């Protein structure tokens, strides 16, 4: 039936357009790379995986170059358990805390790390975060 097909197409189009909640291999890969860099103590690599605005904020706030500032923050290198993507934003739950990622022109980068939930409906508290 034409109407049934129209309904199906519209629903499919809506679901495609929403880009909802599914995994994105590239976001998961970026989260894994960030965790691996933290686990290996390779803070220079971890800094490369930060979103530019987050890195700039970190260096400005601590008046140090990124790797030294990251050392100060003592981020945990938890295993990535789940990555949820919504458009150009993603959240990675790890065995230790939560990271937020954003899609940049260079690919997925970590916008905030060392995040723990606060009260309901309140933003996460993050050790490292952009503007």
């Amino acid at each position: 039936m034409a109407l049934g097909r129209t309904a199906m197409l519209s629903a499919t189009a809506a679901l495609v357009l929403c880009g909802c909640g599914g995994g994105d291999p590239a976001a998961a890969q970026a989260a894994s790379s960030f965790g691996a860099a933290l686990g290996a103590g390779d803070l220079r690599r971890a800094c490369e995986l930060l979103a530019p605005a987050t890195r700039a904020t970190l260096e400005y706030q601590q008046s140090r170059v990124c790797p030294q500032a990251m050392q100060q923050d003592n981020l945990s290198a938890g295993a990535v358990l789940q990555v949820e993507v919504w458009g150009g934003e993603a959240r990675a739950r790890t065995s230790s805390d939560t990271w937020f990622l954003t899609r940049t022109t260079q690919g997925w980068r970590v916008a905030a790390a060392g995040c723990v939930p606060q009260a309901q409906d309140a933003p996460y508290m993050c050790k490292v975060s952009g503007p």
Partner: protein
Amino acid sequence: MRAFFRDNALGLTFGAAFLLTLAGQSVAGLVDFNNQQIADGTDPIGYLDYVMSSSFAVDVAENWQSEYLQFLLYVFGTVWLFQRGSPESKPLHQLGRESDRDQQTGRHVTAGSPPWAKAGGWRTAIFSRSLGFLMGVIFLLCWFAQSVAGWAAYNGEQLSQREDTIEWLSYLGSADFWNRSLQNWQSELLAVGSFAVLSVFLRQRGSPESKPVGAEHGATAVSG
């Protein structure tokens, strides 16, 4: 070809204007979206990424659903509701679904009546409601699309603000969903209601949406 354009000028003109304004919305929306991206310290996105985004989809769908809701309500409202002096209203004595004679159905079909009007039974019953039914279906589909795209856009914003995402059913009860819906509905209802009333007292010469210039203010169901 000329005859085709002449015979379909209203539909073609509004169809072309629709495509132009949709294109304009996509460009203005992209610039606005990227201004916000830059303010948030994130990278701007390209045109194709934007027109495939939930942000653009929800902005389009929320307007489409309200337009079809407007026509759905108007189609049904004008069956039963009277507005004295309005060319949009039927005469008082014709309120309701009207007789077979008025509607050219049953024994009163003509040679040129559509096949499903002549058929009788369930086909005529469906055809008799097809305009309102289709408006209603399109409204529901667009509202559903708005809910899905709005949910995705909302969750993206939540993550950018380091907040948790929500389920679709929770989004249906959210302020964001109802603010988007109601702000469109109120404007459509204002436009329709004010048009029905203003057309009692004002005229647009030559428009079938208006009464003839010389018609009495109290003349109902007259158009020219």
